[in-house]
């Protein structure tokens, strides 16, 4: 498989996953304000700023907007093309990557991605948004899930498909860890919180909902919502398909399907890091994490996840390209040798 093709399939599914996650985050946090009392500007900012921070684009946000208000943050995360990670940008980039490999994907997948693209690119989308933001997010989420389903059900599960899987699970692991980090400012720097008030319950419930984890969490933990249980669930649940451990395990599996190397061994740094992170997640307890501080742990976790992505790129996608001038020289050298041989 062409490296460029593998790269495009990887990014196509990463961007779709990204769009869906952002849709969930904003969708859940918008109505949440209805339940919170005493909203002043400062409290509003305290609510919206961490949401911008989860995407890692705080600097860009303040270059484009003065204050973290609901309007500015949603505009930034949903529509703004200047933000390369907004929902609309993500869908455009997913489609652009799909276009590069149009010959490798099925007509069903392409048509749905194309439909979603035209939906966010036309005024219909703004209209839907104006009438009901929740309906808008519903469309984005449904589109993304439809695409994920089509990827699963219509594409050949060959090497390229595993690259798409790797992209999806890497992005999902990263986003789950970032969503979990949304309310770190309400937590003590180290150790578990002593008490949990009504507002905390609302906010940590929102975290679960942002990960589509509400029902799954309830079925395991019952009605009680507190930061420790939520973090444990989103980090370590082996069966919930958006938990960090689940996603990293799947990522690890995809890497091994690409190379054919068995569990417990590795031939490139991506496999080494992924295998190591799976083991770490399996053998870490939630108490240890709160002892060192959840935020600090998540920071390092995100770095590790991203390093796997970088090493995957080095192993399969990035092959030493000469720049044009050097390549021309290589050709001249080679061709000169040939004519010497011919003499």
């Amino acid at each position: 498989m062409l490296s460029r093709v593998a790269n495009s399939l990887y990014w196509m599914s990463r961007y779709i996953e990204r769009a869906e996650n952002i849709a969930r985050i904003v969708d859940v946090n918008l109505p949440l304000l209805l339940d919170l009392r005493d909203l002043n500007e400062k409290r509003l900012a305290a609510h919206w700023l961490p949401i911008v921070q989860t995407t890692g684009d705080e600097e860009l946000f303040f270059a484009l907007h003065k204050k973290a208000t609901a309007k500015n943050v949603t505009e930034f995360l949903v529509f703004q093309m200047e933000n390369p990670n907004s929902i609309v940008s993500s869908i455009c980039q997913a489609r652009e990557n799909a276009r590069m490999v149009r010959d490798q994907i099925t007509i069903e997948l392409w048509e749905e991605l194309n439909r979603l693209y035209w939906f966010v690119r036309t005024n219909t989308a703004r209209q839907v948004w104006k009438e009901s933001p929740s309906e808008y997010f519903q469309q984005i989420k449904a589109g993304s899930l439809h695409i994920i389903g089509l990827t699963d059900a219509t594409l050949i599960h060959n090497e390229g498909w595993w690259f798409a899987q790797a992209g999806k699970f890497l992005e999902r692991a990263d986003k789950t860890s970032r969503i979990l980090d949304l309310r770190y400012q309400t937590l003590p720097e180290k150790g578990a919180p002593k008490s949990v008030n009504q507002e905390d319950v609302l906010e940590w419930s929102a975290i679960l909902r942002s990960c589509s984890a509400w029902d799954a969490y309830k079925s395991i933990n019952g009605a009680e919502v507190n930061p420790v249980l939520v973090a444990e669930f989103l980090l370590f649940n082996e069966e919930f398909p958006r938990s960090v451990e689940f996603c990293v395990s799947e990522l690890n599996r995809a890497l091994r399907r690409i190379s054919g190397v068995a569990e417990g061994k590795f031939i490139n740094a991506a496999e080494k890091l992924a295998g190591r992170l799976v083991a770490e997640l399996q053998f870490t307890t939630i108490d240890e994490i709160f002892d060192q501080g959840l935020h600090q742990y998540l920071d390092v976790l995100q770095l590790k996840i991203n390093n796997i992505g970088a090493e995957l790129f080095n192993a399969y996608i990035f092959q030493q390209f000469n720049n044009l001038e050097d390549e021309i020289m290589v050709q001249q050298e080679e061709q000169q040798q040939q004519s010497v041989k011919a003499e």
Partner: protein
Amino acid sequence: MTSALKSKPASAMLAGYNPELFFDEMVSADGEIRPHYAKFAELFQATTKESFDSKRQAVDLAFMRQGVTFNVYGDSAGTEKIFPFDLLPRIIPNKEWEMLERGLAQRITALNLFLHDIYHEQKILKDGVIPPQYVLSGKHFRREFVNFNVPKDIYIHICGTDLIRDDKGNYLVLEDNGRCPSGVSYVLENRRALKRTFPEMFETIGVRPVENYPQELLRTLQYIAPAGVAYPRVVLLTPGAYNSAYFEHTYLARQMGIEIVEGRDLVVRNARVFMRTTKGLQPVHVIYRRLDDDFLDPTVFRRDSMLGVPGLVNAYRSGNVSLANSIGTGIADDKVMYYFVPRMIKYYLDQDPIIPNVDTYLASEEADKKYILENLEKLVVKAANESGGYGMLIGPKATKAEIAEFRKKVEAEPRNYIAQPTISLSRHPTHVNDGLFEGRHIDLRPFVLYGEKIVTVPGGLTRVALRQGSLVVNSSQGGGSKDTWVLYGDE
């Protein structure tokens, strides 16, 4: 005298249709439906304005959803449009098609013999049939390839010849496209769309299929693989996703089941071409390149080309990789060479052209130049090396300033211009709006493949100038397209 449609079995929508003073493909001058359209007209009468509208919208929506689009140059990146599609098919009876098929085969054979000749002995020049300076001064004549033997001696493997019909209905060749002709994907997609729109018609009318084009193309490409390669790997080289024909590139690659590559996916080592894959470098044997000569290899042609592959030409010269079309075919596309094609046919094949040329004047011939400059407002003037409807003056429709501009250009660079009389292209009933049909000018681009044998897909791309009175059918200039039906019979 012309008159509005008389025949009874016509759809209410076609009732007021008037072919006016043009040659109309469907309706004769006295208002009768031509025999090869009779069955279609009979079936079409069941179509009401409402059902036609909904069929039309369904097709447009399907094209948009499938991304059957072309990119518009000079517009901000990523602007895509669907190539407007008219639901009324252009129909060609079998006996006409047989003549065209023979004419096209004759032409591609002569062009390939010509290219072989001018890159080897140059007999046609020495015998004075074509003045040597015209070939040797050609912008696309690649002197580096003189005495180079291309695989199987085939230069043009894929040709998209543009045909038109004049006011008497005679078929004429307008130009030969022997570099990277595009449009065949629309032939295939238009057929798919029309089969969904009028499924019942295909059963009764008897339309020859076009669907085997990708197979024939792949066969042609495999035929020219370097000797000794048992399982040649064929790839399609595209300029990239922003190229106006990118949809077509991915479409053909997918239909043929081959990889689509960009220049940066390929690398040349020891005069062999490889592609960069997740499992390392893999050899490549045949390249269907949709990239002009100039961009192919920055070590040989344009040094600033970012689209090409350094060393590709050396690999090609070493016989380790084959290219379709070959390097150097652009000289046959030169509109000055076009003038000489009838002479080539006579010289190499000792035949008369089956499909004649349009009368052509060469600005570099003194007498012709005088005639051109005196009659600019009547003529169509074309630059010798442009395509896509660019660099063209249509005298009768031009402003005084445009004519003055072309006068200067022709005087300054006569070698670079030819002129032809303005041909009144044939017209075809075309939906204009709200269930109303009017005549619009059309042309035809059949696609000819030259491999082990010569294969022409029955039909081709019928382009239609959608603007009233316009003679320009190019997609970049407001043209649309139609499905082209070649019948098994004549009625």
